[in-house]
């Protein structure tokens, strides 16, 4: 059995050695930069002080995890993180697909490339600038309020309203990323065989029927792979945007796990505790990834493994 395996490996190596060499740098990259740092995650179970180092710090078991689960903010942080992620998914995921479908129907080349450029642009603006703009526009004297006042509404300091925070957060993310995200779908769309459309037209299908029966099935594999990838990073919400947009009056809806880690871990230098929270976050993430993959496997042909 073992010999057989060795034999097939050797045979494979002889045949495909160049491929193995090609994949080596990537493998090394992951081993060195992604796997090795994972070793540091053990400080979640230790009372880590930099002066003692990772090895010499004392083991404290699950204390950091119980502290987080018992924290008064645990429920709220989890809820906020999940809700923001889910809103981002529900509204943010279909947006680039819709944009790509719309752009695909545009026949005027000049208009198409202009529209594409305009929608890509926000992606290249630094987050600091984007949040600065949002903050300024949301002031009682800002652009958003000018529009609200024009429509007869009452001026309101928008970023002070806990109820509006998620809308602002998700809408601005969509605005920033929709054009960039549509690129991959546009390329998928360009790969659809035009004979299919001709055939559909001959069968008497209108634009809408063509969309439902030709275009969407054709790009479905791309959509599903993108969805699974997105699910894998669902809970990995960076703290940067939150830190730049939130304030104590919106903590109720805005405070998420990663911003809490920032406040506790980096500002209070409680490394072990914040690692424990981060690890917990990643475990949820991994679970979500597995679940999506399983679902996708059941309902469609496409899956990661």
């Amino acid at each position, binding site marked *: 059995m073992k010999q057989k395996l060795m034999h097939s490996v050797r045979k494979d190596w002889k045949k495909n050695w160049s491929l193995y060499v090609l994949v080596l740098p990537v493998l090394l990259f*992951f081993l*060195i*930069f*992604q*796997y*090795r*740092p*994972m*070793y*540091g*995650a053990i*400080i979640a179970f230790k009372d*880590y*002080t*930099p*002066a*003692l*180092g*990772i090895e010499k710090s004392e083991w404290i078991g699950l204390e950091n995890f119980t*502290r987080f689960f018992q*924290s*008064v*903010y645990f429920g709220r942080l989890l809820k906020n993180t999940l809700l923001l992620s889910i809103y981002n998914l529900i509204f943010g995921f279909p947006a680039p697909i819709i944009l790509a479908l719309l752009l695909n129907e545009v026949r005027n080349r000049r208009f198409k490339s202009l529209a594409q450029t305009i929608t890509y642009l926000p992606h290249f603006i630094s987050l600091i600038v984007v949040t600065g703009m949002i*903050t300024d526009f949301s*002031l*009682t*004297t800002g652009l958003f309020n000018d529009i609200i006042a024009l429509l007869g509404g009452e001026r309101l*300091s928008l*970023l*002070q309203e806990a109820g509006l925070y998620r809308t602002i957060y998700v809408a601005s993310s969509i605005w920033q990323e929709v054009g960039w995200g549509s690129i991959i779908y546009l390329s998928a769309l360009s790969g659809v065989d035009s004979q299919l459309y001709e055939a559909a037209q001959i069968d008497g299908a209108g634009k809408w029927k063509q969309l439902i029966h030709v275009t969407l099935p054709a790009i479905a594999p791309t959509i599903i792979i993108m969805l699974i990838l997105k699910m*894998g*990073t669902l809970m*990995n919400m960076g*703290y940067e945007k939150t830190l730049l947009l939130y*304030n*104590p*009056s*919106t*903590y109720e809806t805005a405070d998420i796990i*990663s911003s809490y880690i920032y*406040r506790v*871990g*980096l*500002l*209070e*230098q*409680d*490394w072990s*505790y*914040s*690692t424990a929270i*981060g*690890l917990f*976050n*990643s475990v949820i*993430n*991994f679970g979500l*990834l597995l679940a999506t993959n399983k679902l996708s496997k059941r309902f469609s042909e496409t899956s*990661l*493994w």
Partner: protein
Amino acid sequence: MKKKTALLLAAILTASSLAGCSQNASTEGTGTAAPEQTQPSQEAAANNTPAGGKITYWGLLSTTESPNFSNRGDEPFAKAWMEQTGIEIEFMHPPTGQIKEQFSLILADGNLPDIMEYNWLADYPGGPEKAIKDGVILPLNDIFAQYCPNITKYLAENPDIDKMIKTDDGNYYAFPFVRGSQRLCNTIGLMLRGDLLEELGLEVPTTIDEWHTVLTAFKENGIASPYCPEYTRTDLMNADPFMAAFGICKNFYIDDAGKVQYGGIQEGYKQYLETMAQWYKEGLIDADLATLKFDQVNAKMINGTAGASLGFAGSYMGTWMGAATAENPDYLLVPAPYPTLEKGTAAEYGFKDSQYSGRASAAITTSCQDVERAAKLLDYAYGEKGHMLFNFGVEGESYDLIDGEPVYTQWIMENPDGWPVAQAMSAYIRGNNNGPFIQDERYLDQYYALDCQKDTVDVWGATNADKHMLPPVTPTSDESREMSSIVNEITTYRDEMALKYIFGAESLDTFEEYVQNIKSMGLDRALQIQQDALDRYNTR
């Protein structure tokens, strides 16, 4: 085969999501993922001070230095310091805003610079005693006695400072940054438009009621946001003068009976919130209170949409006066005293910076090979010549002696290259920022160029605040760990609720419940820890 590749792919995906987590928490200290910034420390390790060699010195480069110098070693200040002591220094600076992260990376790396300038009192997890026990820095008692005549003399003459810079066990841990006089401690206070007051025939307000009258008058005369403070900036708002009027401080403080109390649950705090909520409703406080950052406050104070604010005499009042008088020569800001409830009574509570806050104090690390020279280098600042160098710079270049008093030269006050005074000063002195030396009050009188700035010192200082401020106590390492976890939860909750009460999103009828919630987060334990630490401090 296909299954295997798929598995590998899955593993890689997991890895990247997990790795993302550990990066967020920035736990790696092993060097693999350490960013470029650690390079200076590695360089330092390479030439780890053979006797007579360079002393490596790690510390923050202030924002008034960084526009003109990328390394302190290039400044005339450091050149003079090296020349006068005959000791060569190699400076290393963490990137602005990342001092704590860099500090932890260097510690994990293990090769420490000889001298590290840091807030060992507040920013070393577990406190200064723990830093000594962890083997990071040296206790300085013997070193002071052996090599440091200047600081020893100063501490003998100033027993109250001596008490502040020790741990409960009696260990010295750093060469401290000390504000040399109480007058230097009155750094934060209220200021408002004096020219408008005169126009409206009003006096500078001293009570809460008078403030209400003045702010209302401002509002009626077209000032859109009469009171416009940077409300979420903690170091400023911990000094909130309107809160002080109700006989409390925001955080931990010492009450009249000498007991430690927490401001956020007092009856006075409730009254404060009621007042603020009323003012907010009446439009006397800026409508965007929670999102105000310096840029916005800055713009509003200069263009006249705001009438009063809270801030520092130098970087706030000075900046606004300078920018606004260019357009409107009548523009005038005047400092207002810490208000009271009844007219004519002296303000009991207020805010004073501690003479020793732990900031920018230099410790000698256990990696230092040449303790004697490092100690002598640092001790120099506490002697007569060093004191002049750190506060006034080089005679003939940055200051002249006129009638025996140091006066900054024209190069400093009206820099030929157009540098602002603070930047010109920073090239020659550390007196206008901080560092391991005794700050001289004579610097302040010259740095505050305007009369209204000079007034702040006495107007803001007319309180009994130092009696109520907590001195630099040192909880034990276990206690401080417990403390930070309790205080963290409480502060988040208190700040969140404060804004809700002020905006009227939550009725003050729920105040009882709010107090109970804070207590259930472990407030009593935190009070106990602070009280114990204070008792130990008092018996030092």
